[in-house]
């Protein structure tokens, strides 16, 4: 037998064996399971580091506010204050029930922070609330990832493991964005989601604020003979206010004689879109779970008021992190668009409500 026959037969044996192993055994899946689980383990370590880093930041902030036992305050918050969604197979009053639950939760958090950080200012307490919430979210993300990982290992579920491994890059990116967002809240800087309140700030001019709902104010100003009412959350602490209730009250106060309601908000961009792009449409631009949005829609439909939406596009990471220059440029464009809508669509001596939706941290 010569050398060429020898390697050809060896290759054939390898091919047959390889084909048998690949097609009739679980070995490839086991190998993938092993590969993916090792990748997920590394990512879990990274997520744990991000979670710990977040906790360190909260403790540092609470120390700055002279809290006696910041670790205890943090531990008392994380994992608690969850919200159970209202029954939805009976939809009657679901919005009322959801609003009631959301406000109950907000009130419990506010009371918890007030009790544990009694000597801080309102702005500091509002920022501390958000920091505690972010820390809680980081813990939750880490727990969910660990849960699916352990399920995958327990049941040798390589499909679950593969799905988790493929999703993890995005999950880690989101967790990192939350961790970075803490710096903005600690320093009290405007974030991307503050685009709506910043538009409201630029439109208000020198007008004085009037409280209309909890943590929500309105300004009365004018533009080329049109009366402009501007609603935003009360800053510069971290809050989104109650814009729905504010619009409802203001529309009722004006007896429904409002030519338009314009909502301005940050919107998540698609991957192909650029940060800071501004789009104009119809409807209530607000990303709440429901109660605030429906309040705006109901107020508008009760009196037949056209509802306009102006959105400033940005990624999820940009929305929760310090405001970038591109978002700021978008805000300036949005201000001009809102002014144009008012000039073109609101009759002279008519009135319009502009609502700047979003978190007003760092914006008075």
């Amino acid at each position: 037998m010569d050398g060429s026959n020898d390697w050809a037969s060896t290759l054939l044996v390898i091919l047959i064996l390889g084909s048998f192993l690949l097609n009739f055994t679980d070995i490839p899946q086991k190998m993938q399971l092993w590969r993916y689980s090792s990748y997920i383990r590394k990512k879990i370590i990274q997520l744990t580091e991000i979670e710990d880093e977040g906790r360190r930041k909260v403790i540092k902030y609470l120390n700055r506010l002279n809290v006696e036992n910041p670790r205890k305050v943090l531990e008392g918050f994380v994992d608690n204050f969850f919200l159970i969604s209202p029954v939805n197979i009976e939809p009657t009053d679901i919005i009322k029930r959801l609003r009631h639950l959301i406000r109950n939760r907000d009130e419990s958090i506010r009371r918890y922070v007030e009790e544990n950080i009694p000597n801080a200012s309102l702005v500091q307490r509002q920022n501390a609330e958000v920091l505690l919430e972010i820390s809680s979210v980081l813990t939750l993300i880490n727990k969910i990832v660990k849960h699916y990982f352990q399920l995958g290992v327990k049941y040798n579920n390589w499909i679950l493991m593969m799905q988790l491994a493929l999703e993890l890059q995005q999950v880690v990116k989101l967790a990192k964005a939350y961790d970075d967002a803490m710096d903005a809240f600690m320093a009290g800087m405007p974030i991307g989601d503050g685009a709506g309140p910043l538009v409201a700030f630029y439109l208000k001019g020198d007008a004085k604020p009037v409280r209309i709902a909890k943590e929500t104010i309105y300004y009365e100003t004018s533009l080329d003979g049109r009366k402009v009412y501007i609603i935003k959350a009360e800053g510069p602490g971290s809050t989104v206010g109650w814009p729905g209730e504010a619009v409802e009250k203001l529309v009722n106060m004006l007896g429904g004689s409002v030519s338009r309601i314009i909502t301005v908000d940050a919107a998540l961009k698609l991957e192909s879109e650029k940060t800071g792009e501004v789009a104009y449409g119809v409807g209530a631009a607000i990303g709440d779970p429901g109660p605030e949005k429906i309040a705006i829609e109901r107020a508008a439909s009760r009196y037949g008021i056209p509802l306009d939406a102006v959105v400033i596009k940005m990624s999820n990471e940009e929305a929760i992190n310090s405001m970038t220059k591109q978002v700021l440029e978008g805000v300036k464009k949005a201000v001009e668009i809102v002014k144009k809508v008012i000039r073109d669509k609101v009759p002279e001596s008519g009135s319009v409500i502009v609502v700047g939706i979003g978190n007003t941290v760092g914006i008075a």
Partner: protein
Amino acid sequence: MAPDVMTIVFLAIMAFIISYMVVTALKSRQEPVKLKRTITVIKCSSCDHEQSRDFKEGDFVGKEEGQCPKCGGKLIVSAIYVEEIPEKV
């Protein structure tokens, strides 16, 4: 003695696998750290005077920052934003 074909094929496959693993590992580590700085923009409420400086803790949009050096009007923080510092080559 010249190596047989099987050895060459085996070595080529091994070289491909190792270089693929090295490239993948290097790629995953090459995450450039972007340096950023936060700018506070201050504008006069009466004239067109505008100035900017690095962000200081306690700054917020709408904060009064003293008097305008040009006209004596109120200086107000009008924007706070983050920008990337371009990398030096």
